[in-house]
Structure formats: C-alpha cells, structure tokens
C-alpha cells in the first residue's frame, strides 16, 4: 500500500480496514489477522499495527477475544454508520472540489442527475 506523506500511518491503515468493512471484504464477526500478519500485510511496524487495533477497538469497530484474536464488530448498525460516514466524506469532498470549479448547488445536482441517467442507459444497454 502507498502511504500519504503527511498523515500518520496508523490512521491510513485504519482507513483501509474500515474501507474493507464497508465494501464487505471484511464482514461483521470476521477474524482479523494477527498484529504481526497485519504488519507484514501492510509493510508496517508491529507497534503501529498494534496501535491500529487499539484505536479501532476504542471506536468500537473491533473487539478482542482473549487468546483468540481480534474480530470485526458483530453490530451491523456500526458497520452501517461507518458506511454512512464514508459516503458523507466522499460527497463532502466531491462538493468541495465542484465548488472549487465554480458550480453551484443546483448545477452540481444537475450534473449528478445527468451522469446517473447516462450510467443507467449504459447499464441497460449491457443487459439487453
């Protein structure tokens, strides 16, 4: 994984794990890799990997069963809200960039509408 230069590495790994939970790559109740394996998978230091799990636990997204390992939360609401958060931040970022280009709210909505319609027709075309 490529890391951004100014953001702490543990936050970037946390984001990556959250992303995987939201997309369903990691499902509620799934066991997560051990600290060492997480470190190897992400090419990070084991202490950083341990911190990732600690912070995720504080957020309630993970929990540790003693002697067994770390697991993704079984609470679907938490995952859903994680999804909401992710969606929100994507939209926020999008709006910020569009505003930067000089579009106002209605124009942005129009654009999305149009893009969405085109997408639909492509999708329909495929299924035909």
């Amino acid at each position, binding site marked *: 994984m490529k*890391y951004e*230069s*100014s953001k*702490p*590495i*543990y936050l970037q790994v946390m984001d990556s794990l959250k992303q995987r939970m939201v997309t369903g790559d990691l499902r509620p109740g799934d066991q997560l890799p051990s600290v*060492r394996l997480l*470190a*190897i998978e*992400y*090419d*990070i*230091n*084991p*202490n*950083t990997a341990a911190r990732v799990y600690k912070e995720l636990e504080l957020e309630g997204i993970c929990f540790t069963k003693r002697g067994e390992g770390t697991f993704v939360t079984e609470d679907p609401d938490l995952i859903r809200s994680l999804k909401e958060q992710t969606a929100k931040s994507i939209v926020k970022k999008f709006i910020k960039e569009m505003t930067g280009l000089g579009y106002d709210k209605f124009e942005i909505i129009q654009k999305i509408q149009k893009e969405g319609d085109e997408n639909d027709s492509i999708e329909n075309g495929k299924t035909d």
Partner: protein
Amino acid sequence: MILLKTEKLTKTFGGKPAVYEVDAEFEAGKLYGLLGPNGSGKTTFMKMVAGLFYPTAGKITVMDGLSKTASKSKVAYMPTEPFFYDYMTVKTVGDFFKDFYEDFDPEWYKEQIEYMQLTPDLRIRALSSGMAAKLKVAVTMSRRASIYMLDEPLNGIDLVARDKIITSIIKRSAPDNTIIISSHLIDIMENLLDEVLFLKDGRTVLKGNAEETREKNGKSIADLYKEVYA
C-alpha cells in the same frame, strides 16, 4: 528496557571524525532507523557496537554492561558487504553460525533459506550479489538476538526480494529485542520504523518517534530527510 546505549561515542580516522559524540538509547520492542546518506557515519557507528572498530572516545553499553566478547553473542550485526568465506556453501554458513552462536535457530534458517529461494548446496562463490544479500538477512535473522543491526539491508536487491527482506525483519521484531536498520532508502523504510535517528557528518541532527515526527512536521520522514540533507 534499554538494550543499547551510547554516550558521546566518537570515532576518528586520521584525525577526521566519522562519528562524533553520538548519544543514543535503543529500547526493547522497537525498530530504529539509522538514517543518512553514504559517509554520514552509520556504518562506523554499527561497527563500533559490533566490535569491529574500537571507539576513539565515548562509551557503549550493551544490555547491563556486557563485556565486548559477551555482547557479540547478543548482537546480530549484518554488514553491508557480503562477508562469507568463499569456500563455504549456504549450508556451511548455517553450520558456522550454529557452532558459534547459542541463539541460532537452524529450523528458522532452513525456513528462511527456502523463503529466500536459496538452496543449501549453493556455493558462496557462485552467489549473485542479490542472492548474497538475501543470505545475509536469512542467516542474521535466524538468530534470536537481543540487538539486531542491519546495515543497508536493501542495497542491491530487486523489488520482490525487498518485500521478503522486509517481511523477515517484521517477523523477527518482538517485545524483547531491538532492531536497528541503517538505510538511505527512506521512503521504503519509513512505515517500518518506530524511531528515527538522522546522522549527518557523524553527528546526530534529528531523533525521535517516527509518527510524532511526521505529525509535528506535517511531512513524511522521506521529505524531512530531503530537507535535512539538501
């Protein structure tokens, strides 16, 4: 727990200091980056700790003050250059380490050799530089040492082998040992390190926790490195 400590450690060659008054502490359970361009004193520093150079001045304390000979059984130093006898094979190198180091784990060595895609009957003479570099890591990391010192472990290594070497290092990192890696390939090492120590002309110019340093300066260690050595 501090496993290695240097106080005003100095080495001069012909009156010119290669390492000058370096104070450093290395704690158990952490990975340290000894960073700086070639000629900044990284190798000299490591060689003094390993007992290949004697310090001109200053002090080295290994664990709770082990003797020079005793500390060699606790320190696993990997030089940059291939350092095996030509007559040996990959297997003999393992035998040699087993004979001289109590903490050497032959099973681990076997695993590492396989992982690095080497075979026991390979002759040292016939190894390419990349293979020799992999063998160095394999044999060094097959010890259960308290202090690992790897001098430029990624030098002359292709991308695939790079990942393997990094994995071997991470696998060995444990709460009871400290790993010190010297490198000038900062961008690759960056995510691996707990602590960084920048050397410039033999002096310490920056040291601290890697994440804190990134947060405080708002830039990566690699960017910071470019600034310091520009």
